[in-house]
C-alpha cells in the first residue's frame, strides 16, 4: 500500500478550469453507454443482456460502497438498505407517476415519459438514500470498527422490516388519481410481497450511462480534498484530527455520498425488470456487495468494478454453464479477449511498460471463465453436482484468503491504470506482484 503522504503528493493540485478535463469523462461515459447499448445485443442473447444490466447495478453498488468502506475506512454493512431506499423511491415515482399521468402502468407508448419519470425517481431516490445515510452517519462519530459495522447492519435490517410493513400496492389508476396524496401516505409498496409491475425502463444504455456517472463521481471524490481527508481518517483518525481534519464532517459526508450513489444504484436496479422487495435491503445483499469491495480493493474503484464484473459473470457461468459451452460465439469472443490482452501484454513488455503484468494476469480471466463453464457443465452432467451450489463457498474462501494474503484487497487503494507506466528501477519492489489480479 502506498502511504498517505505519497497519496497526497500524487494528487494533482491544479484547480484551474479546464473544460477538456471536466467534459471528457462525461463524454466517455456517454460513448461507452451508447456503445454497450448498441453493440452488446449483437453479440450476446437476451439472457446475457440482462446479465449485463445486473452487472452494471452491482458495479455501481460496489463502487458506491467503496466510498465509505474503502476511502473512509468506516465499515458499513447496511449498504443494501440505502440501495433499497433508492429503489423504492424511484420505483414509486415511475410506477405511481405513470398510474397518475397515463392511467396505466403497463404500457408501451409511455416509454419516453416513463423514462423521464425514472430519471426524476433516480434523483429523488438518491437524495432519499442520502438522507438515510446522514442518519446512519451520525452514530459513526461515536463508534468505530466492529460496533459501527453492527449498527449499520442493524439499520439495514430496520429498513428491511419497515419495507415489509408498507401498505398494499394500488393497481387501480382511477382510485389513485382520485386521491394520490393520501394513497401515497400509506406507503403503498406492497409489504413483503415486493413492489410489482415496475417497468424496466433502465435498458443497457441507462444502466451503463449511470455506471459511468457513478464511477466518475466516485473517482472525483477520491481525488478531491474530501477524498484525501477520507483516506487520512481511514489510516489514522487521531493523526487526521491532529492535521485539522474535521472528523464529524467527513465521516458523515462519506456516509452521505456513499448512500447517495448507492441510492442511484438501487434506483436503476428497480428498473431492470425485477420486483424490488424487502429482501433486497437485507444483510445478505449487503454482504454480496462487501465481497466485491474487499476482493477488488478497499479504496480502489477500478478494482471493485472489475471484481463486481468478474464475480457476477462467474456466478452466471456457474449457474448456467450451457449458455457459454453451447455458444461457440461466446467461447470465441472470450478467447479473442484473452488473446488481445495477451498480445497487449507482450507489446507492453516489449516497450518496457510495467503494465504488462496486469494484462498478462487479466488475459487469464476469460480463459478461466471458459474453463469454469466447461467444468461446471461436466460436473452437472457426469456427477449431477451443481457447481453454483458451491459459489458462495468459493467467495467466502476467497474473502478469507485475500484477508490473509493481501489485507487491502487485490488492488489496495490503487487504480488499475496506476499499474501501468515505465518500468521502475529494479531495486524498488515493483508495485504489482504478478498473479494478484482478481482472477475468478
Amino acid at each position: 500500500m502506498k502511504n498517505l503522504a505519497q497519496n497526497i503528493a500524487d494528487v494533482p493540485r491544479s484547480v484551474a478550469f479546464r473544460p477538456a478535463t471536466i467534459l471528457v469523462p462525461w463524454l466517455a461515459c456517454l460513448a461507452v453507454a451508447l456503445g454497450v447499448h448498441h453493440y452488446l445485443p449483437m453479440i450476446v442473447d437476451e439472457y446475457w443482456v440482462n446479465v449485463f444490466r445486473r452487472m452494471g447495478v452491482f458495479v455501481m453498488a460496489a463502487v458506491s460502497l467503496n466510498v465509505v468502506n474503502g476511502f473512509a475506512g468506516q465499515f458499513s454493512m447496511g449498504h443494501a438498505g440505502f440501495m433499497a431506499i433508492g429503489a423504492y423511491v424511484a420505483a414509486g415515482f415511475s410506477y405511481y407517476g405513470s398510474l397518475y399521468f397515463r392511467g396505466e402502468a403497463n404500457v408501451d407508448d409511455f416509454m419516453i415519459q416513463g423514462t423521464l419519470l425514472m430519471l426524476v425517481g433516480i434523483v429523488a431516490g438518491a437524495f432519499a438514500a442520502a438522507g438515510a445515510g446522514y442518519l446512519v452517519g451520525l452514530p459513526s462519530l461515536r463508534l468505530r470498527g466492529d460496533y459501527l459495522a453492527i449498527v449499520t447492519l442493524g439499520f439495514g435490517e430496520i429498513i428491511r422490516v419497515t419495507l415489509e410493513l408498507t401498505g398494499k400496492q394500488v393497481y387501480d389508476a382511477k382510485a389513485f388519481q382520485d386521491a394520490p396524496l393520501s394513497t401515497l401516505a400509506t406507503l403503498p409498496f406492497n409489504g413483503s410481497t415486493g413492489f410489482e409491475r415496475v417497468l424496466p425502463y433502465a435498458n443497457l444504455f441507462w444502466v451503463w450511462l449511470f455506471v459511468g456517472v457513478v464511477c466518475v463521481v466516485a473517482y472525483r471524490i477520491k481525488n478531491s480534498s474530501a477524498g484525501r481527508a477520507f483516506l487520512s481518517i481511514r489510516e489514522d483518525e487521531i493523526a487526521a484530527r491532529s492535521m485539522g481534519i474535521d472528523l464529524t464532517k467527513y465521516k458523515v459526508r462519506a456516509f452521505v455520498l456513499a448512500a447517495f450513489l448507492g441510492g442511484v444504484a438501487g434506483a436503476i436496479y428497480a428498473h431492470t425488470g425485477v420486483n424490488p422487495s424487502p429482501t433486497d435491503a437485507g444483510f445478505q445483499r449487503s454482504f454480496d456487495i462487501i465481497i466485491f469491495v474487499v476482493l477488488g480493493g478497499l479504496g480502489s474503484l477500478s478494482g471493485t468494478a472489475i471484481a463486481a464484473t468478474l464475480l457476477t459473470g462467474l456466478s452466471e457461468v456457474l449457474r448456467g454453464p450451457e449458455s457459454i459451452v453451447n455458444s461457440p460465439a461466446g467461447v470465441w469472443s472470450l478467447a479473442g479477449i484473452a488473446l488481445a490482452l495477451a498480445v497487449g501484454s507482450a507489446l507492453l513488455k516489449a516497450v518496457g511498460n510495467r503494465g504488462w503484468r496486469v494484462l498478462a494476469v487479466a488475459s487469464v480471466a476469460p480463459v478461466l471463465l471458459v474453463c469454469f463453464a466447461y467444468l461446471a457443465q461436466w460436473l452437472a452432467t457426469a456427477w449431477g453436482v451443481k457447481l453454483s451450489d458451491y459459489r458462495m463457498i468459493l467467495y467466502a474462501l476467497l474473502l478469507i484468503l485475500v484477508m490473509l494474503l493481501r489485507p487491502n484487497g487485490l488492488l489496495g487503494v490503487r487504480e488499475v491504470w496506476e499499474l501501468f507506466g515505465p518500468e521502475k528501477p529494479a531495486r524498488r519492489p515493483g508495485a504489482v506482484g504478478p498473479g494478484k489480479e482478481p482472477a475468478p
Partner: protein
Amino acid sequence: MATFFDTLIATIALGSLYALVALGYTLVYGVLKFINFAHSDIFVLGAWTSFTSAVAVTTLLDTQGVPPWWVGALVLMLAVLVCATTGYLIERLAYRPLRKAPRLNVLITAIGVSLLLQNVGQLPGYPVVRDNVPPAAATADASAPAAQGQTLATLPFGPTPRSMPQLLPNAVLNDSAVASGTITAGSGRGQVRLDQPIEILPDRQYALVVTRTVDGEPRTTTFRLVGIEGGRIEAGTDIGTQPRRDPIDFENATYRLVLSPVVALRLIDVLIVVSSIALMIVLQYVVFHTRLGSAMRALSFNTETAALMGINVNRVISITFVMGTALAAAAAFLYTQKYTSLSQPASAVWVLLGLKAFVAAVVGGIGNVRGAVLGGFLIAGLELFGSTYSEVLITAAGGSSGIGTALRDIYVFGLLILVLLVRPAGILGTVTREKV
C-alpha cells in the same frame, strides 16, 4: 394476565439462550478484541449437528427402550464436540494469522468465515448411514430417506428445513389430573368414550393422557379435548378429541384427564433456565477464580505483558474459543428442544438470532460476563414483550395482524443503536474495562 405470564416464561427461556450465545461473543471479544461474526453460525452448526446426530444416533444405535434424554445427552455431546472442534480450527486457521492485523481485516475475515459456514451448511446431506431399520426419531422427519427404510440413508444437513425430534422431556409441569380410568371406546379418530362421568370447567383446556401397552411396553399419547363445554359429561358419551394422523385402537387403554393450566410451564423451559444458569455460574467461577481465568483476564488487558508472565497466549485464546463455541453448542441444542422446527442453515432467521445474541452482549457491555447475561434477558424481554403487546395494541386499534410481531427486530436494533449512542461501552461496561 395469561399473556403476560406466557410472555414472561418465554422471555426467561429465550433470554437464557441469548445469554449463553452472548457469553461466547463476550469471551472471544475479551481475549481477542474483535467480534466473532461467525459465532452465530457456530450456533447454527450446533443446532443442525444436534439434528443430524439425533437422526444418526437413532438410526445407527438400537435406542429401543433407552430413555430419550440419554439420546439427548449423547446428541448434546456430539454437538459440543463438533462445534468446539470447528471453533478451534477457525481460530487456528483464520484468526491466528491475523493476530497483529488491523481490526477491520479480522472483521472481514470473520464475515468470510461466517459465509463459509453458512454455505457449507447449505450443501445437500452426506450419504453415509447404512441401515435399514426405520428409526424412531427419523419418523419425525418424513422427508429423510432414512425414514423410508432405505439401505443407504442421507445424514440430513442441508437446504431443507427440518423438524427436530423431542429428546428432552417437554411435559407441562403445572397441570393437574382430575380423573382417571379406562377408555371404553375410541381409536384416535377424534372421539373417545370414558368409563365414568367427568366434570368440565368452562373456558379451560383439558388434555387426555392415554397409556396403552404395545409389545409389553407402555406407550403414552396426549390428546387435547375439543368441542366441549362446561358441565358434566356422562360416562359412555362421545367426547371430541384432536384427531390423530394414524389412528390406533385405544379401547381398554388407561387414561388420565388433565386440566391444562392457563399458563403452561413446561419442563423444557425449566431445564433450559437451570442448565443455562448452571453454565453461567461455572463460567463465572472459571473466569474469576481459576488460573485459566486470571490468564484470560490478563490477556484481555494486555497480551504482551500476559506473555511475559509465562502465559501461553495462543493456548489460552484457543481454550477461550473452545469454551465459547461449546456454550453456543449447548445453547443450540437446548434451542432445538424448545423450538423444534429448524430453518435451513443460511436462513436469515438464524443470522438474526445470532445477531440478537450479539446485540445482547453489546448492550450488556461486551467483554463483561454479567453484562452478557443481563443483555440476554433484556433483549429477549424487549423482543417478546414488545412484539406481543404491540401486536395486541395494533390489532385492538384495528390494524392488520402481524405488524406487531414484525416490529421485534426494529425494537432490538433500535435499542442497540440507542445504547451505543448513549453508553457506547454497554450498560455494565465500565471505563476501567473490567473485561474477561
